[in-house]
C-alpha cells in the first residue's frame, strides 16, 4: 500500500507518461490502483479518455470524501481507476492557502482511499508551491523524472534544499532518468555523475517515439505495445519501484 507522487519542478520532463504507464503496470501486476490527475492540464485524464464531472471542482476535491469518490472513473483497464483533473485545479494553491492545516490537507484526502487501492499515483503539476508541500507530505515515495541536463541538475539541487527546509524525509525521494538520448554527451555525462548514488533508479526511460505516440493511441505503452522497447522498460521500471517500496515499508 503506497502513495507514489510523480513530481518535478520543471515541466515537460515526462511526468504524465511516467504516471500513466506506471499506474497501468501497477494494475496489470494485480494491484488495485488509482491515478489522481492533479495537473490542471489534465493530460493523464486525456490519455485515458476520461473527463471530470461538470460539477467537480478544486473545492470539491479538497473536501474529499463522498464527492471525491463519486468523481473517480474506471479506465478501460482492469483494476485501474482514475480521478480526472479539472481545470479549476489551477487554483488549488489559493484554495489550500485559505484552509486550516493546509500542508496536511492532501494526505487527509487521499489516506481514506487506501482501503480501496493498493497503490495511489499522484500526477503532479510542476512548481514548488503549497500543493507540492502537500504532495510531499502525503506521498510514501516521490518519484522524479529527470532529464539528465545541467538545468535539471540545478532544479534537483533546489528540490533537495526544499526538502531540507521543510523537514520532509529525503528517503522518499527517488530519481528516474527520463527522455534519455544516449547519443548526447551531456546526457551520458550527467548520468555518469549520478551513477551509484542512493535512490537513483537503474532503469531509465529513453526518448523514443513509442512514448511520444501515446497521445495518438491514447493508451499506455505497455497496454498498446507490451513487447516494444518502451513497453518492456516500463515493466522493468515498475519491478524496480515495487522492490524499493518494500524497502520503504
Amino acid at each position, binding site marked *: 500500500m503506497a502513495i507514489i507522487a510523480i513530481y518535478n519542478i520543471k515541466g515537460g520532463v515526462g511526468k504524465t507518461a511516467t504516471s500513466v504507464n506506471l499506474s497501468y503496470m501497477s494494475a496489470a501486476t494485480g494491484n488495485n490502483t488509482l491515478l489522481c490527475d492533479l495537473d490542471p492540464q489534465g493530460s493523464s485524464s486525456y490519455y485515458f*479518455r*476520461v473527463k471530470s464531472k461538470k460539477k467537480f471542482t478544486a473545492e470539491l476535491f479538497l473536501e474529499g470524501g463522498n464527492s471525491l469518490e463519486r*468523481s473517480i472513473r*474506471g479506465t*478501460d483497464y482492469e483494476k485501474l481507476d482514475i480521478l480526472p483533473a479539472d481545470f479549476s485545479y489551477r487554483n488549488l494553491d489559493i484554495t489550500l492557502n485559505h484552509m486550516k492545516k493546509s500542508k496536511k490537507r492532501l494526505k487527509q484526502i487521499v489516506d481514506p482511499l487506501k482501503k480501496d487501492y493498493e497503490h495511489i499515483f499522484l500526477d503532479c503539476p510542476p512548481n514548488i508551491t503549497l500543493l507540492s508541500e502537500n504532495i510531499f507530505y502525503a506521498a510514501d515515495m516521490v518519484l522524479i523524472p529527470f532529464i539528465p541536463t545541467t538545468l535539471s541538475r540545478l532544479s534537483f539541487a533546489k528540490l533537495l534544499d526544499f526538502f531540507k527546509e521543510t523537514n520532509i524525509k529525503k528517503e522518499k525521494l527517488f530519481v528516474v532518468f527520463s527522455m534519455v538520448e544516449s547519443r548526447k554527451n551531456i546526457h551520458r555525462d550527467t548520468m555518469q555523475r549520478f551513477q551509484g548514488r542512493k535512490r537513483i533508479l537503474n532503469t531509465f526511460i529513453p526518448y523514443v517515439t513509442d512514448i511520444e505516440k501515446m497521445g495518438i493511441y*491514447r493508451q499506455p505503452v505497455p497496454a498498446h505495445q507490451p513487447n516494444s522497447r518502451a513497453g518492456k522498460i516500463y515493466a522493468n521500471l515498475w519491478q524496480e519501484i515495487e522492490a524499493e517500496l518494500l524497502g520503504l515499508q
Partner: protein
Amino acid sequence: MKPLAQLSRQLPDPATLEELANKLKQKYTVQDTPTQTTNLNFYDSFDWRLYSKDILCFEQHNRLYLTDLIGCELTPSLPLAGKKIRFHQELPVSALQEKIKPLLEMRALLLQSSFSQTTWQLRILNKDEKTVVMITCSERYEAGQQDKQNEQQDEQPICSVRLQEVRGYEKWFQRVEQDLQEFGIPMPCTKEQELKIALAGKGRTPKDYTSKFSVMLKPEMDGLTATKAIYRDLLTTMQANEQGILDDLDSEFLHDFRVAIRRTRSGLSMLKKVMEPDITARFAQDFRHLGKITGPVRDLDVYLLMEEDYKARLPEHLQKGLRYFFDDLAAQRTEEQAKLVKALRSSEYTTIINDWEEYLKKENNTEDTEGAEKATQPTEKPPKAAKRIDKIANTIIQKRFQRVLRDGQAITPDSPDESLHRLRIQGKKLRYSLEFFSSLYPSKEMKYLIKQLKNLQNNLGLFNDLSVQQDMLNAYLDELKPNSTKSQQISAAIGGLLTNLYHEQQQVRCEFEETFRCFSSGENISLYEKII
C-alpha cells in the same frame, strides 16, 4: 467505496448471444475483443471439504486459485506449470497451501468438474471511444464435449452474458441493463454458480458425497423397511467409494468404505430379528469377509498417516531408522493394495454386493425369499419385521446404553487393559445405534448425546490405537533380521517410539476415569431416559 454493479443472465443458445450482440451494435458503438478459450477446472476433496467451508479451488490459465463463493481471492494464486496436484504437500509453501492444509488433511484434491469456456467482450464506447460498459459473453462446454461436437450437433453449450459497471458510468450500465432484459433469465454472478452449472451438466450438485451417515426414518415405519433404508444408505456409501479405492486416490476412500461395512455388520447383529435368520446369517458372514479383505491396507494406512506424528516423538538422530521403517511399510502397502484391488474385482465380491443390493431393493414380502437366496428353504417370518421402528430403536438404544454404563462402571484402575478394549466395542455399538435412529428423536438432544459419547469414544479409541501400535511395533521388531546397521537404526527408532507410546497410553488410561464420569453423569442418564 461503492461496489460496482454487475449482473449475469443465462441465455438459451448461441443464437440468442448473437442476437443480443447485434441489438447492442445497432444502438451503441461496440468494440469486440478477440475470443479466448480457457479451461476452468474445479477441485475439491471427494467429500467437499473446501466447499463445506465456503471455499472454491479452481485452475484457470495454468494457475491455482482459492476464492470465496463469490469469486474473491482468499490467497494469492499459484502458478501450476502443468503440474497435477493431488495432496497439499505437493504445493509450494504458500498462503494457499497453508489455508487448505488443515482442511484437506490427508484427502486428495480431485477434479470435481471441468469445462472449457470461450469468452469475448463487447465494450460499449462513448463518443471519446472510452469504454463505459463491459459485457462478457461466454459459451461453456463440458470438458471433452467440444471435440465430440461434430458428431453430436444437439449438444448445446451453456451461454451466458455478464454486464459490469465501469466506475463513474452508472447511467450507461442502467441503459444497457434495460436492453438485456429481453434476453434469457437472470442468474447469480458468482463463481459458485459456475461450479453449479458445470456439475448440473453431469446431473450432480456440490456436496453430493458426505461421509456422515443420515437416513430419514419415520416412527411408524415397519422394522424391515426402516432397516433396509439404513443398509441401502450404507451400501450407497460403499459403492461411492469403490472407484477411489481401486484408483488408490487417497486413504479415506477405503476408510469410509470400511466404516460402512462396520456399520452394516453392527446393524446385522443389533437388528437380527428384523430380517430372515438365513439372510442375516449369510450377510453377516459376507460382511465379515469384506472387513477382513480390506483390513491390511487400512492398518498400513493408519501407520503411514502417523509418519509426521512419529517423527515428532523422536530425537533427530533416531529419525533415520524411522525412515527405513516407513519405507518398508510403504512397500508392504503396495503389495497389500494390489491384493485388495484383486479382491474387489473378484466375482466373490461382486456377488456379495449384487445379492445384497438385490435383497435391499426387493419389496417387503417377507414370505417370498426367492431371488437372492433361491437355494434356501422359505423361512418363518422374522418376529420384528413388522414391528414399528421407533419401538425397536428404543429397545436397542436402551440396551446398548445400559451395557456401556454397566461395563464402564465395572472398570477400576486395576482392571486389565482388555476391559477397556471391550468397552470400546460396546461404545461403538451404542454410537451406531444412535446414528442409525437419530432421525426418530429430537435433533438437539441427539446431538448432545452423540457428543458425550464421542468424548468417551475418543479416550477409548486413543487407548486402543496406542496399544495396537505397540503390538505392531513389537511384532515388527521380532521379525527384524539383526546384524545390519540398518536393522540397528530401525530397532533404535522403534525402541524410542515404544517408550514414548507406552507413556502416552498410561496418560490416556489415567484420563479414562474422568471421561467416563462425564459420560455416566446423572444429567446424561436422565437425558437418555427422557427421550428414549
